[in-house]
């Protein structure tokens, strides 16, 4: 699925490029650059989705960016355009309900505050990535949603039900992959699944579920002998019982190898396509940006940013640095590059020209350098990636010396592989 080329958007998709690719390395890289313009580095937006669906999904939300990049690294302004001022709509145009709604939720353990006046609004039908470093309050939030713990203040509703008064009704319609769980060592995988089926009063087939989460060959073994990853798969299987309207997954990729993480994402997508809302937490951005419609970043018990992935990416792409290695630096090339619109800065180090520019301007920069008489030997993009954005929020704004850490830099030519490398 990941190698399916994305649909042609604005005539610059990869579909019509792959065939004539491989003329030379640069061409492939060039293609990648243009793909980045649309999808951002390392992104694999649902390739099989139509343009209109994609637009609709982002529709009304692109403008909801909670923060805007003010140009300095780590310096995200707190300017907020009221999130969700425009209600997202479903593909058929019906206004969406809230799947998860936190109002001013505070949770203190003694004098320690785990959540502080947290507001959250996850709409039905979206995939919401709940990001933050360990200890930011992600699990606390999820525990509140499931009534494992009770908030000190504020209210929380899931699928329209109060989390405390109607917890059981919520859990009838929710599939959960909790954090810090343990399986029943002596029960087999099948008994676990049967217990979930029994509890939810459905008629799912344990074998089909096991097959889906990839533990079919271990279903009759005691779960005590499962690896962490297998236990994770088993509990995901339990979460899928009864076709839940909402999936709450706390750090779903814990213990999974890259392949397992990819399968996890595929299941998340499939469940979302079925109509389920997916809310999952992670401290690893790479798991989130590929599949989320929206992302919330939590730090120190507060939601510090919330935006669509596209919105975040748009903001970060503005800060991308293009490094072009040339055989020689022609006179005046720096001035030419600087004159390009949307190039904020350019400088030369030895035979490398670095330009901080809009993502969309990368091709123009390369062309300008070539026009000046230089031969481009290699180039790479050093995105101010989502990781960096993430770091800027979660590291308390402290500077990070590394550039984009999203994976191999722009020379990477396959989006799908790129994504795997991130996991």
């Amino acid at each position, binding site marked *: 699925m990941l190698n399916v080329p994305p649909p042609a958007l604005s005539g610059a998709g990869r579909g019509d490029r792959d065939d004539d690719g491989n003329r030379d390395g640069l061409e492939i890289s060039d293609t990648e650059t243009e793909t980045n313009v649309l999808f951002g580095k390392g992104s694999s937006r649902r390739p099989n989705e139509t343009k209109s669906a994609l637009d609709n999904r982002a529709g009304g939300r692109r403008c909801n960016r909670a923060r805007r990049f003010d140009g300095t690294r780590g310096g995200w302004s707190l300017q907020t355009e009221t999130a969700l001022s425009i209600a997202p709509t479903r593909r058929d145009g019906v206004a969406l309900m809230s799947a998860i709604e936190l109002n001013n939720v505070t949770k203190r*353990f003694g004098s320690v505050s785990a959540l502080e006046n947290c507001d959250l609004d996850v709409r039905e039908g979206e995939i919401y990535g709940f990001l933050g470093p360990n200890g930011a309050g992600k699990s606390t939030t999820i*525990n509140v949603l*499931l*009534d*494992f*713990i*009770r908030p000190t203040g504020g209210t929380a509703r899931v699928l329209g039900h109060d989390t405390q008064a109607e*917890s*059981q*009704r919520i*859990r*009838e319609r*929710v599939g*959960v992959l*909790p*954090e*810090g*769980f*343990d*399986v*029943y060592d*002596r*029960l087999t995988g099948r*008994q*676990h699944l049967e*217990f*979930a089926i*029994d*509890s*939810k*009063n459905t008629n799912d087939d344990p074998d089909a579920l096991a097959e889906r989460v990839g533990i079919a060959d271990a279903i009759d073994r*005691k779960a005590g002998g499962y690896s962490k990853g297998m236990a994770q798969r088993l*509990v995901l299987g*339990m*979460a899928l019982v009864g076709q839940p309207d909402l999936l709450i997954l706390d750090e779903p990729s814990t213990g999974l190898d890259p392949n397992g993480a990819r399968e996890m994402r595929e299941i998340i997508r499939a469940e979302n396509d079925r109509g389920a809302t997916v809310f999952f937490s992670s401290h690893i951005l790479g798991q989130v940006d590929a599949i989320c419609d929206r992302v919330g970043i939590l730090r120190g018990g507060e939601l510090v940013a919330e935006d669509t992935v596209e919105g975040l990416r748009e903001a970060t792409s503005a800060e991308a640095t293009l490094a072009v290695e040339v055989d020689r630096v022609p006179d005046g090339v720096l001035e030419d590059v600087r004159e390009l619109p949307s190039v904020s800065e350019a400088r030369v180090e030895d035979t490398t020209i670095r330009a901080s520019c809009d993502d969309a301007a990368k091709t123009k920069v390369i062309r300008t350098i070539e026009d000046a008489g230089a031969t481009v030997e290699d180039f790479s993009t050093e995105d101010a990636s989502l990781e960096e954005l993430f770091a800027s929020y979660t590291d308390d704004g402290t500077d990070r010396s590394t550039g984009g850490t999203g994976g191999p830099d722009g020379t990477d030519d396959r989006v799908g592989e790129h994504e795997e490398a991130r996991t």
Partner: protein
Amino acid sequence: MSTLAVARKDFSDAVRSRSLLALVALFVLFAAGATYLVADVLGGGGGPEGVPAVFGLFISLIFPITVLVPLIGVMTGYKSIVGERESGSVKLLLSLPHTRRDVVAGKTIGRIAVFAVAIIVGFAVAAVIAFVSYDTFPAVEYAGFTLMTIVFGVVYLVFAVGMSAATGSTSVALWLSLGFFALFQFLWGFVVNLFVWVVNGFSSPENFSIVSGYFSIEQGTVVAPDWYRLVTSLSPSNAYQSALGTFFTQDLNFGLGRSGSVPYYLQDWFGFVVLAIWLVVPLLLGYSRFRRSDL
């Protein structure tokens, strides 16, 4: 239904873990072994005069039962909920549409089932030995004896489940349950006596010793006040013996022969009331704490 789903899972967990098997083996060994010992080695057990020898068996079994059965009850129950809290599997349990009441009730039922199966099997094997060893076999009384022994053990089991629900640590749950057992099994009489002694201005009333309580000067005279007799009979094992007395027409001194002339709360049937209170109250207290606690 949710409660039963939890109970079924808990029971199959016990089957899988072989803890059921271990319990059954233990009770078979205990009940059959003790019966064999009493009937065939010690020569019958020696019940009161004029009563068939087989009743001596019941009398001989009472003391070992009141020690072993509560301990097994505690061991069966104390980890039931807090163990899942400590391991984190309670999150699996409560991610599914079970209420916390379902969890407490289901766990209680599941553990009672395990415990009851073990006792029934053990006592059934013992019944065969008794049937072979004695001339008569009082089936009805034996069934009542088995049933009341289950109820008696379940009091401690349920108390342990209550503690398991109330606390966040298995060792706290264990020690609270063992403390309950020690208090009512070994110390209760002394505690009540100490109370009498303190209330009396740190001195013993007439016909009273802090070690043995009120004593009668002549046989047949009862000098202990009714409230004292009630309080001392509140321990689960006294209630168990009182309740047992109702199953036997023969006077085996289980229920201290109390009937007719004493206040209702000192009659044998009141043992059922006391057992019922012990079955319900600790569990409700444990549940109410569990309901309010953060997991």
